[in-house]
């Protein structure tokens, strides 16, 4: 195009034309900043942490011995540390299952039935809790669940106090009140992570064309079978994505257990105390690799089950 070439061009135009002629350079500019961040900040700190986990703390001097050893990992297998891992993984599983049960119907409603307006409202309602500080929410729950709190009052008004007392009397999950018990931790976790479960499931269901459900019914499947053979498998990637959030967020959290919990530690609290008060960075690092390992196993299992095929 000779006529356009003759036109005067601004430096920006010349630059964009230069990029057009050199696509590799354009790609480098596109990926440069995120790569610097991912490799320089994110992956290198992760790597540093993993390296630390293979050092050990000298019990006498309190100094970190920078030699390769598996003895720190061996410490994870003491009864008290195994207890912490088990408790945390159990909580993460319970929270994930509960959020799944609550999130799915709402996500299904949003994807299938809600009008555009209702959907917008629901998006807002679901994400609204994320706008306020996480700490504020956790402490608000502390008040709601306290012995003199509104929930106990409502339960009392409904003459269900005996039921709540029975629940709080169950050894591993109970405690003196809802605000100081694993049940309380569970309730707050379900509350704070719920949006992370709803949104991916909703996105997955949104991509299922209505005609697939019609086709299933047309071929003789009653709604329950359509759900099992069509809706559930197609929503599965969204459920896995959501559970990655709820599971890993619960595994690493130390605030909710320390605000709502009793003296039983969760992984996050253990990491905090090892790297803080006791200065045992290697053990803290080894402890942190436990959630990483659990998530890796979880992803591999999900992949085996074919959950990621539809991605």
């Amino acid at each position, binding site marked *: 195009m000779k006529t356009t070439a003759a036109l005067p061009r601004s430096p920006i135009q010349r630059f964009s034309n230069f990029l057009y002629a050199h696509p590799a350079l354009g790609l480098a500019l596109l990926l440069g900043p995120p790569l610097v961040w991912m490799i320089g900040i994110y992956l290198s700190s992760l790597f540093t942490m993993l390296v630390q986990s293979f050092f050990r703390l000298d019990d006498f001097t309190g100094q970190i011995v920078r030699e390769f050893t598996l003895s720190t990992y061996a410490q994870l297998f003491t009864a008290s540390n195994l207890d912490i891992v088990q408790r945390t993984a159990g909580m993460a599983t319970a929270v994930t299952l509960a959020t799944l049960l609550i999130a799915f119907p709402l996500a299904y409603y949003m994807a299938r039935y809600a009008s555009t307006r209702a959907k917008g409202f629901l998006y807002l309602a679901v994400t609204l809790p994320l706008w306020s500080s996480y700490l504020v929410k956790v402490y608000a729950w502390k008040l709601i669940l306290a012995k003199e709190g509104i929930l106990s009052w409502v339960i009392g008004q409904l003459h269900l106090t005996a039921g709540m007392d029975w629940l709080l009397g169950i050894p591993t999950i109970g405690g003196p009140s809802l605000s100081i018990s694993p049940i309380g931790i569970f309730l707050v976790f379900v509350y704070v992570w719920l949006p992370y479960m709803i949104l991916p499931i909703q996105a997955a269901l949104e991509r299922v064309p209505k005609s*697939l459900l019609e086709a299933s019914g*047309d*071929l003789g*499947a009653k709604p329950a079978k359509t759900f099992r053979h069509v809706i559930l498998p197609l929503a599965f990637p969204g459920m896995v994505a959501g559970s990655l959030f709820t599971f890993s967020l619960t595994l690493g959290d130390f605030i909710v257990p320390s605000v709502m919990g009793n003296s039983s530690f969760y992984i996050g609290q253990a990491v905090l105390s090892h790297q803080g008060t006791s200065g045992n960075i290697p053990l803290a690092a080894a402890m942190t690799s436990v959630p990483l390992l659990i998530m890796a196993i979880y992803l591999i299992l999900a992949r085996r089950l074919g959950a990621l095929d*539809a991605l």
Partner: protein
Amino acid sequence: MSKSSTPAIQFKDVSRHFGDVRAVDHVDLQIADGEFFTMLGPSGSGKTTCLRMIAGFDQPTSGQIFLHGTDVSYLPPYEREVNTVFQDYALFPHMTVLDNVAYGLMVRNVPKDKRKAEAEKMLELVRLPGLGKRKPSQLSGGQRQRVALARALILKPRVLLLDEPLGALDLKLRQEMQLELKALQEQVGITFVYVTHDQEEALTMSDSLAVFNQGRIEQVGAPAEIYESPASEFVAGFVGVSNLIRGPLAKQITGSTATFSIRPEKIHILKAGEKPPSEAYSAGGLISDVIYLGMYTRYEVDLGGGNILTVAQQNLTTTKGKPLAAKGQQVQLFWEKDHAKQIGAK
């Protein structure tokens, strides 16, 4: 399969309203058993809604729908002995082709070996043997179309519903599939109800067809009947190209002001010095445009007063460039009286 005298499908005064929109408006219809029946109409004419009401995806606001004599108006899809081929095929993306085809048997708890064997037989019927292990995303549009067909036919429905199933295919494949579908329908001997907006497709395949417009049926009949004797101006205009002549010009030509239609291919252009036969209508005009279309040439002839007739002439001889030269010439047209169809008259 023996044909019964009870209609396969019957609509009794069926209406379907969506809010203020009357998608289907007092439709009465009978579809005979074993027939290839087409619902033809522009988009929004109610044909797809009618099909969806037969399948059970939609329910009538009023009226009744009978399937082989049984009232099914408000039954859910899974209680009806009809199956559907969807416009977007609606194949399950997470299943293999074989599992897709076997789906109807799977939900009926047919043992695995048996449904696999059945599904393979169906894939052979639609000429896709050996593709069972693939996922739908690995197939071409035409192949997906066939899988959807096999999946719908595996339950041996008495009625198969097809919702613009060839819409996404290219012309050549579409024409091939039209003939193949027609042959398949004759082979399996069940009623096909076919929805399309393509009038050529409707004429090619149907035993009879209904022309829909604005939620109502304008005309039901065999393809030739619809084409040769359109019952309304809409049918004349929608099915094929039609010249409508009305008012003063009609009176000048036929002696009556009644509107009539004349198909472009039925009009002859008189050669210079020839006289029109006595038993024919004739009119004179100016060729305002000539369009060469390969098989035939289309002339637009201006008769004056805003009346332009479309005339199609088969290109019987090598006419390279010749027809185009006719532009701007004054010509005399004629057509047999029989071919001028008064609108509404049989």
